[in-house]
């Protein structure tokens, strides 16, 4: 059957299958929009990802070349989340990281660099979560709480080690200080234990 085969199971996996019984005897022309699942990244995810990516790029402005790479990466990240494309997201994040490292190599201070890398982590986390929600739950499902909780978690998880690392850096400027190294190690250990 070339033309008429419409095995109901083909559309079944998410419960959208269907065919009507008694009632459509007279009016079987009736077609309702029953697609309960529409793949797509939630709007809130896109907003969080775009904001974080732009913050990361903006933090790199002191070094023009790094800023160029950063803004390119941010644009790619925004497009990737729009299209739910993981590879593209990876590429955008790679560009942002490369921009950050370039800024560090070309003499940017630690503050913009930490902000840029931290924001990049948040952007990746939010973007990847958004894409996976788009695949698993779709655009029609309520997912605001999930997106918000995930964003808050990743901001928190990034902010704590950033603060620890920055503190260590401030203490260790000049001569290598044992206190600073200890603080760094303790910070890493604390995070590891907290997450266990």
């Amino acid at each position, binding site marked *: *059957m070339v033309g*008429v085969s419409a095995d109901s199971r083909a559309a079944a996996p998410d419960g959208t299958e269907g*065919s009507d019984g008694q009632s459509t005897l007279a009016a079987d022309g009736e077609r309702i929009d029953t697609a309960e699942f529409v793949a797509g990244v939630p709007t809130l995810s896109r907003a969080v990802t775009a904001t974080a990516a732009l913050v990361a790029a903006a933090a790199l402005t002191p070094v023009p070349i790094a800023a160029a790479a950063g803004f390119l990466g941010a644009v790619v990240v925004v497009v990737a989340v729009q299209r739910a494309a993981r590879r593209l997201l990876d590429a955008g994040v790679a560009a942002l990281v490369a921009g950050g490292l370039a800024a*560090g190599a070309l003499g940017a201070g630690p503050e913009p660099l*930490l902000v840029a890398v931290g924001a990049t982590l948040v952007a990746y986390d939010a973007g990847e979560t958004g894409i996976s929600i788009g695949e698993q739950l779709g655009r029609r499902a309520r997912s605001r709480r999930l997106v918000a909780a995930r964003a808050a*978690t990743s901001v928190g*998880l990034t902010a704590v080690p950033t603060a620890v690392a920055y503190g260590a850096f401030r203490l260790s400027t000049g001569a290598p200080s044992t206190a600073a190294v200890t603080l760094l190690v303790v910070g890493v250990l604390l*995070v590891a234990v907290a*997450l266990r």
Partner: protein
Amino acid sequence: MSVVADRETERWAGVAAIALFALAVALVVSRPAPLLAGSLAVVVAAAVRFASPPTPDLAVERELSTTEPAPDEPVSVTLSVRNDGDGTLPDLRVVDGVPDGVHVTAGSPRLGTALRPGATARVEYTVRSVRGRHEFDPTTVLARGYTGAHERELAVDPDGADVLTARPRLRAGEPLPLRAQTTPYVGRLATDEPGDGVEFHSVREYRAGDALSRVDWRRVARTGEFSTVQFRQERAASVVLVVDTREEAHVAASPDAPGGPNGVARSVAAAGEAFASLLAAGDRVGLTAFGPEDAWLAPGTGEAHRARAAELLGTRPAFSPVPSEEPFFAWLAVRRLRRRLPDGAQVVLFSPLADDYVVETARRVDAYGHPVTVVSPDPTGEATPGQRLARIERRFRLSALRRAGIHVVDWGDEPLATAVVDARRRWSA
């Protein structure tokens, strides 16, 4: 609540490489700033390394506004998920197991949320209840931890209602014209046999024992000869409705119109209507499925019989709008059908005629002495060359049946009654 799978999402794969690369850059340029950036990546890598799959403890409950809706009545479903564990669940994705054959008309049976201990999240959506018995599948829950590095998939059987039963009401429509084969019971089919009835049949010589009311007294007065007036006998038919429920019959014009009825759903609807109207006309009606799942209702009459038919059509898996997984042995089904058909019973076959086998079956049953009428919902479209080909193939099948002397009601988009009236006009012409 059972764990279906533990997966590593690998979403942080490569973060350690970034850390090492940053370290290398820092060493090469002898600056501390890239090292700082690398330290963030180290922390993430460590967090992922130490993360373990979450162990959610959930209480899930499903509520239906009604478990026995009328067909087409919207049913609202509320699924509530409570975190009974001690820890916060930061990433919880819930997908309710909406049964096949039920459409979601409003809302979504999916939810993404985060739950503190003791907190409850609700999913509300509306489904349109279609004919049949539909059992909800277990709810799928995907839980991720703080890093999202692990994902645990759970299947949870919610408390509360999980079966939706929509029984059709059998409404009588246009009486289906039947073939000339009847039972000894009085009914609506006018036969060619002389006897009691309404319509004039013939006049014959009076024989001793003829009822006096049948004697043509005017003729007696005119000629003195006695003669008896005979009428056409009206008899009831014994009819078995056979619904083609094979996988081949689950066809519809367009695969992207999931709300549109397929061949089996329309056949079942037509069978329900025909059942009610034949019963109302005084015929003895039976019901069976020609497909992998068995269902049989011997011909009978009465209100209880009608209720049994509604139950059968509404809730038996044999008449489900979703194809069965059972294997189907065609020759066995034909033999079973032949064994069950009472002597003198007619057959009305409901089939979209999507393959040749059903045509052959109809002709065979007809040849066994059970006159067959075919009611065929038209599942073909004409958008693509393939659909046009299928339409032409089906037309050939219809003419093959008609050539074999089998009555065919070709039911397109119009109401069934219109198709029946059209067909009757053709047969009597």
